[in-house]
């Protein structure tokens, strides 16, 4: 789960990691009213959306005076921000953060994440802050410094000394740096983050450090022990159908194509999407009904798929293991009772109890395939008619 910048900064503050003074607001009136609380200009007006590249897309502006600030508040709040990380429609800006401008001496990069390959925690720092880390990696790989930390050992003084030495920090800035790195590590562990990133991580003219930006990703698997963090979920930025699916405990991701698909298992679901493309059409969604899915989940999943107006045909691809083919067939027949389904549907059933499942569907005069490729070719043909 991603957190918004203002939420991440609030958590930073709670862990004593310095962030610029700022106030977030969800409407123009409050935002303009909040301007009074700042003592000096310039101020930074920042769109709060869960996507990178906000600055380049016009979602971050520096206001030199009150008039400019009001202008930017009005233009940014409510705009559809389109960045390289959003869809073509962009994301509607529902919240902005107004902050004091910092007196920067130099911009650094800081990132802490789970290193999948080494199976531990990795800290990445660079003196080429401000750029995206992928760009730094490409253009100045020698300026990327990485250290790995065994979570059972934790962050130790020698780790921090390594970073300080590699970054060639001046004596005056070292203690402040060390303190913040320690707090960031504690924060990472305390909230079960999978990524904490500060870019730029600002060194100020008075030799202190400031998190100019803040990005936190939480590990979804850990949310069960952080009910307070679960509450921070930005339901407005979630796709409406994806939200519905999450509540119904169906793994669903909306895509741009027109063949709705329902599959058991994430790998097979991805593979099904790829094959739809391979045979010349495009998937409308990723949908995994999960391990032990019963008839009701099949019904719910089908309801979600048909709510997407782009869907022109439906493919159900089931390889029964724990999921039984007869349960899927029953769920489908049940769904037909409540849903008016006038779209072509192709079903592939193989595996546990496939014969019972196929018989249930045959009674309803629904065509069933046992091979994935055949089912895919059929649905692509039907949608293209």
């Amino acid at each position: 789960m991603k957190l918004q910048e203002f939420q991440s900064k609030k958590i930073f503050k709670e862990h004593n990691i310095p962030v610029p003074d700022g106030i977030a607001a969800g409407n123009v009136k409050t935002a303009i009213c909040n301007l009074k609380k700042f003592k000096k200009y310039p101020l930074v007006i920042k769109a709060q959306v869960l996507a990178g590249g906000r600055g380049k897309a016009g979602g971050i502006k520096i206001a030199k005076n009150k008039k400019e600030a009001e202008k930017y508040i009005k233009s940014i709040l409510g705009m559809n921000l389109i960045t390289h990380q959003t869809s073509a429609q962009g994301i509607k800006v529902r919240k902005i953060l107004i902050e004091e401008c910092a007196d920067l001496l130099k911009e650094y990069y800081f990132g802490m994440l789970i290193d999948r390959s080494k199976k531990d925690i990795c800290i990445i720092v660079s003196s080429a802050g401000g750029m995206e880390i992928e760009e730094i990696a490409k253009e100045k790989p020698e300026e990327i410094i990485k250290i790995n930390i065994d979570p059972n050992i934790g962050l130790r003084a020698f780790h921090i000394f390594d970073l300080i030495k590699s970054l060639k920090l001046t004596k005056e800035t070292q203690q402040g740096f060390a303190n913040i790195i320690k707090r960031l590590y504690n924060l990472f562990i305390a909230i079960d983050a999978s990524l904490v990133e500060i870019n730029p991580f600002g060194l100020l003219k008075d030799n202190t450090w400031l998190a100019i930006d803040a990005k936190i990703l939480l590990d979804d698997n850990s949310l069960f022990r952080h009910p307070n963090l679960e509450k921070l979920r930005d339901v407005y930025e979630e796709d409406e159908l994806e939200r519905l699916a999450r509540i119904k405990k169906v793994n669903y991701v909306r895509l741009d194509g027109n063949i709705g698909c329902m599959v058991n298992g994430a790998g097979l679901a991805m593979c099904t999407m790829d094959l739809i493309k391979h045979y010349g059409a495009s998937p409308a969604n990723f949908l995994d009904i999960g391990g032990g899915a019963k008839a009701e989940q099949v019904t719910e999943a089908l309801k979600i798929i048909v709510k997407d107006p782009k869907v022109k045909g439906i493919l159900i691809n089931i390889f029964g293991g724990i999921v039984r083919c007869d349960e899927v067939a029953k769920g489908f027949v049940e769904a037909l009772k409540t849903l008016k389904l006038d779209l072509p549907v192709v079903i592939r059933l193989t595996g546990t109890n496939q014969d019972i499942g196929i018989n249930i569907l045959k009674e309803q005069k629904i065509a069933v395939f046992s091979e994935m490729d055949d089912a895919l070719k059929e649905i692509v043909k039907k949608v293209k008619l």
Partner: protein
Amino acid sequence: MSILIDKNTKLVVQGITGREGGFHTQKMIEYGTNVVAGVTPGKGGEKVLGVPVFDSVDSAVKEKGADTAVIFVPAAFAPDAIIEAALTGIKLIVCITEGIPVIDMAKVMSIINKMGVKLIGPNCPGIISPGKAKIGIMPGYIHKQGNIGVISRSGTLTYEIVYNLTKDNLGQSTCIGIGGDPVTGMYFIDCLKEFKDDKETEAVVIIGEIGGSSEEEAAVYIKREFNKPVVAFIAGQTAPPGKRMGHAGAIISGGKGTALEKIKVLQDCGIKVAKTPSEIPGLIRSALTH
């Protein structure tokens, strides 16, 4: 042969009295797996399906000589279950449990790596050496004993591919589902190292998906020192960046871990990559004859 498990494997099931644990214990026994004990704290002395239940893995090992453990306990308790099994001297642990916090797994790995314990999973279907033993939740009947090794990050997609192999009369030596989480025990490379010395295995299929870099690392290893033909399949070519595709580990982040990138590295290392699961048997046959 086959790798990691066979007819001599003595299995202990952690969480045997749970719904999933009980159901799959029955399936494993039906397949012929030698299930010697179950463990559920507080239920020692009971019997499930004729299998004696113990309060701890330690007693199961001491009294029944269990050498391999499979874990069906809920996510909040699974990391402790893994450590408990590792401390008894068990050398292979298979963790089926889904939804374990990633940091917990990182901590577990740093402990069990030092002990030389092998872990398959979590969030995986398990491991099967067809005709010999099955440890996990895969449907046994789709498999056939033979000479193809299979390693996969997925569950049902593995079944699909195994089904295609079996239909084409290409039996399997061992099939391992390594799991769909960001941090798991054995990665592709670790499994390949096992297959390398297995006389029964003549070729290997690796089934990867978006996210992480373990397919790329495997590709480099295969090119450098693997001694048998490998065919690969990568799922998720149509997956958009930043969206988690079901598995916690299946996410393209920061432009890294895309299917296209993985396919390119695999091909650059001389590995044939199938476009569809149904292509795999043909690619294997041609690799074996060349």
